[in-house]
């Protein structure tokens, strides 16, 4: 059976940061893909490389970072090899991003409606005379009450939830094929979080948009993603369909992560902690970057890591999977 080509295919992506304390190997041969209309979650602790992955896909990494290898094939084009003018033409039109803190991501001294208008004008999403009407329409689409009046609001005049809705309107203005959402609801209330996530779900479904949801919240990923990619210290350790990941995690880190997430039916005694911390990503690193925290460590874990396919679309990078 010839599966359709994925919309986004990240292959062996490696990223390093030059710092005063040495070279930080932030991503090491990260691979996963996303099909049209699919929502894929990337989960892991802070420092696992989730956001670096998102920034690398968008090619908006810090100047100190360098992509040292791999490809990001998007709709047949390798974004790693693409030049800035091509990237500029695609960002906001074909792929766009929602950032964690909407207040700092929006321009504080420009009315939110105009910021949406800027995106429309840049990518020819609307004619000059229709930009305002279209921006108001987009604000209405993300369920901002009284959109014609809110068009003129500055970010500081809106609540955090409202700002995030504006960010979503901004990201979706030109109907991108891929949305990268980097912790879109962190810091928002649970009720607002539910509303924002429902909104992203709905719009993604209506437009067959693919979504990459980056989150530290396993519960949130479970609720909204078809597949989940688990990252640890710059490695993808496991990737599986959501239900399967929770029912039978194969990587010891995934299992720990699930056991460490509070939820109903789990008592404080049962709640697990993950021993140790992320390894220092400078200098020499063991083949398995989780081995020093792992209870199942065996000497052969220091051999180069096998990436095993343990089920349909279920891969695990572990020498001794569960």
């Amino acid at each position, binding site marked *: 059976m010839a599966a359709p080509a994925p919309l986004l295919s990240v292959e062996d992506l490696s990223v390093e940061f030059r710092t005063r304390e040495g070279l930080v190997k932030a991503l090491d041969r990260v691979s996963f893909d996303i099909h049209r209309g699919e929502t894929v979650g990337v989960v892991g*602790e*802070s420092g696992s490389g989730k956001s670096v992955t998102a920034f690398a896909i968008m090619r908006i990494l810090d100047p100190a970072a360098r992509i040292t290898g791999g490809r990001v094939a998007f709709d047949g084009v390798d974004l790693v090899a693409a030049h800035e003018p091509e990237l500029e033409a695609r960002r906001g039109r074909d792929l766009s991003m929602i950032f964690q803190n909407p207040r700092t991501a929006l321009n504080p001294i420009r009315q939110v409606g105009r910021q949406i208008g800027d995106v429309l004008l840049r990518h020819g999403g609307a004619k000059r005379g229709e930009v305002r009407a279209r921006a108001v329409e987009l604000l209405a689409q993300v369920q901002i*009450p009284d959109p014609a009046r809110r068009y003129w609001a500055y970010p500081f005049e809106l609540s*955090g939830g409202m700002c995030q809705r504006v960010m979503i309107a901004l990201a979706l203005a030109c109907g991108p094929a891929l949305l990268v959402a980097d912790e879109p609801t962190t810091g928002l*209330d*649970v*009720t*607002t*979080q*539910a*509303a924002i996530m*429902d909104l992203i779900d709905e719009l993604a479904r209506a437009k067959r948009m693919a979504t990459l949801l980056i989150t*530290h*919240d*396993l*519960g*949130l990923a*479970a*609720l909204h993603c078809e597949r989940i990619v688990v990252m640890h210290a710059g490695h993808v350790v496991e990737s599986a369909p*959501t*239900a399967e990941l*929770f029912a039978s995690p194969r990587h010891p880190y995934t299992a*720990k*992560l*699930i056991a*460490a*997430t*509070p*939820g*109903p039916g*789990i*008592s*404080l005694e049962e*709640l*697990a*902690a*993950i021993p140790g*911390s992320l390894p220092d990503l400078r200098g020499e690193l063991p083949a398995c970057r989780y081995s020093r925290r792992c209870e199942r460590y065996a000497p052969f874990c220091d051999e180069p890591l096998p990436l095993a396919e343990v089920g349909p679309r279920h891969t695990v990078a572990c020498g001794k999977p569960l």
Partner: protein
Amino acid sequence: MDTLLEVASVSKRFPVTVKGSPRGSEHFLQAVDDVSFSIGRGECVGLVGESGCGKSTLVKLITRLSDTSDGRIWFDGHDIGTVPAERFARMPQRALIQMVFQDPTDSLNPRFTAFDTIADPLRRLGRSAGAGEVAKRVSALADMVGLPRELLGRYPHQLSGGQKQRVGIARAVALEPRLLVLDEPTSALDVSVQAVILKLLESLRRRLGMSYLFVSHDLNVVRLLADRVLVMYLGRIVEMGTVDEVFERPRHPYTRALLSCVPEPGATGAGQRIRLSGEPRSPIDPDPNVCRFYGRCPDGVERCAQEMPLLRSFGGVHLSACHLA
């Protein structure tokens, strides 16, 4: 259970100016409105609600960093609510109410070593002790919270998130307080260390016999630690009861909505979600006869706009303020 803290009909209003209102007219933002509850000795009470619901203001009133507009606060048999905040700083009760803050990076002095941070309350509020005694006590506290002694000389930027929060907890328990106010103590931490910190807090409560007021928006975490829970909405407590009662049989539509929005790991697919539409009502000069949740409430009826629902009992300590409950 013996009562440690008693909060009776406490309110806090802030004067505000409203654009376009006539000169000389007075307007007030009602941050906390007629709140009453108590915390027993050794009890852990959770406080949940959205941002802007008045949780932080209520915490400031209880820790006596801010003065009440109305109502009384009794702590350990003393009326502390009527003492102006500046005077309270010199009262012996000041040492008995301590706080652990949300983000250990923001709440630790970057120019203090871990040692100085933990020693600070001992030097300021402790019974005047010599340097040797303070050092001994700091070491004992570090052991108690599981902070390796060799880290005491480090500055906050040299510590991990979990270690910083241990320093924050050691500082808070240094004076052996009766009441510890925990303001989202794990929300800035990774899930890998969350369990360790929560278990530490639980064991310290048992060992030192403290009471906790646990403020959090993460209901899954509140469920783990709290005995009872208070649900706040726009300045008022809309429901309270034991964790089991409130989580299993929520009576207030806001509590139900809140619970239905909590993502549950493992439970894939959207369950029965209650969506709240519209914006919350304005906290400025709220109509005392209209339920604060009216307009956003999925069940609201005419009566809700004519008569403020008051807390009534649903058996035992389970109270809810809804006409329709």
